[in-house]
């Protein structure tokens, strides 16, 4: 595979970021290689997305 890049003008205005966390990378510039890896483990109950609908009608 051949990959040709021509960089013409790159102008960015103001940047506002709340947070850069957990081995994140925020970069202004060129980079040769980037390798990122992230693993996150949380108890299953915290992954349930509501609203909670009862499966059987109450009564």
């Amino acid at each position, binding site marked *: 595979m051949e990959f040709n890049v021509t960089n013409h003008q790159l102008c960015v205005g103001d940047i506002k970021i709340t947070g*850069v966390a957990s081995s994140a990378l925020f970069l202004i510039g060129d*980079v040769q290689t980037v390798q990122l890896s992230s693993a996150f483990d949380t108890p299953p109950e915290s992954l349930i997305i509501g609203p909670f609908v009862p499966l059987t009608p109450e009564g």
Partner: protein
Amino acid sequence: MFSRISKVKSIFSDTVSFSSSMQIGDTSYIDGNSLALAVQMKSETFNSVDIHFEDYDIFKRPFYIPRLNEPVISSFSNPNPFIRVGNINIIGVSASSVVGVGNVGHARMESRVKHIREIPKENKETPIEGSTNNT
């Protein structure tokens, strides 16, 4: 290979914490690593917790990264040698993160986070029951 110059008007950050860095200038290598155990438990007093990274699989499993030697023939040309950016405002940089201005050779970043919740069990005499979900 890269010859562009980054021009930033201003950069501001409130907090740079937990081994994070703000790197201004060219860098040959960035290797960031963050391991975190986040424990939430109900307690009337703050007690120290006796937990260790090696007790959880997430910190033991090998680090998977995409291979670098992709068979790609690449060429770059920079008719405009500048990357212009205005004002940068970052509230927080945390947990081995990097904010960089300038060219970078290689960057490798890794993060592993394990959340633990200890919920008190109802209808039992002993209130605290571990539900660490050790996977």
